[in-house]
């Protein structure tokens, strides 16, 4: 059944093809809307990851700052030897660090342990000391770098955050 037969059909107005083209254009226009919501969520995730990484970096730096100056130098020599012998891989995985191991062994609830493993499983860190090896150094510049995958893809781009401090011999 036709609302208008060909005889009664008005001679002006939009054709079917014009309407379809119009709707198709409108469809393309709304595609960017899809990305708005997911982008805001992604940004919130990124902020959270930065906070987690900065806490890890701060904790590891605090560890070295709390050490006696000579012991700190010993630790850096030990790390160098361990890396050269292939016993450790640098950047190190956070899950292999004693900070992570200690807390997991302390009897966390199942959900707590699951979240901790999920959030930190791909995080790595590296401690870079800078000092004059030729002389007995009076200071060490310690940089802690933390790496984590950006987004959900493990093989995707890597984010990096670093904190730095100077450790003086006279103020161990």
């Amino acid at each position, binding site marked *: 059944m036709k609302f208008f037969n060909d005889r009664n059909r008005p*001679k002006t107005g939009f054709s079917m093809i014009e309407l379809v083209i119009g709707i198709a254009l409108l*469809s393309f226009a709304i595609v960017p*809307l899809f990305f708005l919501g997911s982008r*805001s969520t992604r940004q*919130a995730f990124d902020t*959270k990851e930065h906070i987690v990484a900065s806490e890890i970096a701060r904790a590891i730096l605090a560890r070295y700052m709390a*050490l006696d100056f000579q012991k700190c130098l010993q630790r850096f020599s030990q790390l160098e030897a361990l890396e050269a012998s292939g016993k450790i891989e640098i950047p190190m995985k956070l899950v292999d660090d004693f900070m992570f191991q200690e807390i997991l062994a*302390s009897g966390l609830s199942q959900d707590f342990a699951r979240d901790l493993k999920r959030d930190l499983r791909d995080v790595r860190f590296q401690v870079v000391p800078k000092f004059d090896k030729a002389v007995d150094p009076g200071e060490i510049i310690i940089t802690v770098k933390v790496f984590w995958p950006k987004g959900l893809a493990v093989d995707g781009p890597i984010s990096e955050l670093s904190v730095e401090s100077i450790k003086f011999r006279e103020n161990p």
Partner: protein
Amino acid sequence: MSRKAVTLLEVVIVTSLATAILLVIMNVISSSQQNYSVGTEMMDTQLMMEQVLFNLNSDFKKMVELIDIKPDESIEMLVRTMDQETRVLYKFEKSQNGGRLIKKTTFPDGKILEKDFQSTDMISEVKFLKADKTVDEGFVWPEHLTIALRVTPRSQKSKVSFAIVTQFYPDSLIKSPLDRRN
């Protein structure tokens, strides 16, 4: 240019197409709102983590006391603030499975703002662990405190929860900006 007007069939087809597009738009708006809600929850969660860790960092001895209190006991911690007149008090009530954190802010005009993270929008679990020394690959690390914090928004729309682990060492010279100023 003359044009033929649409038939009923054409009207039905176009209306169906328009309805389908409208449904897609509504779906996009709905999921966008949901995403925004998830994003807001995450922002709140990370803000809480930041507040707790930042304030705990100010006093190692106080943090050690936190471990020594028994479940169902509580401890209060006064936090220094930028303007020196506003008092911020964190009250931590230890439970069997973690803790409950209450932040009480007293402003210079006497107004008090109390926020109970557990009863409002967050559920937090905190695990404190004190180690006198730790041997790692033959190396002895000094006394330290390890803290793991897990925060879950109460609404649970997104089932988002975050966990973080960090350590504190006495006399590490790593202080918060407020401590550095004082």
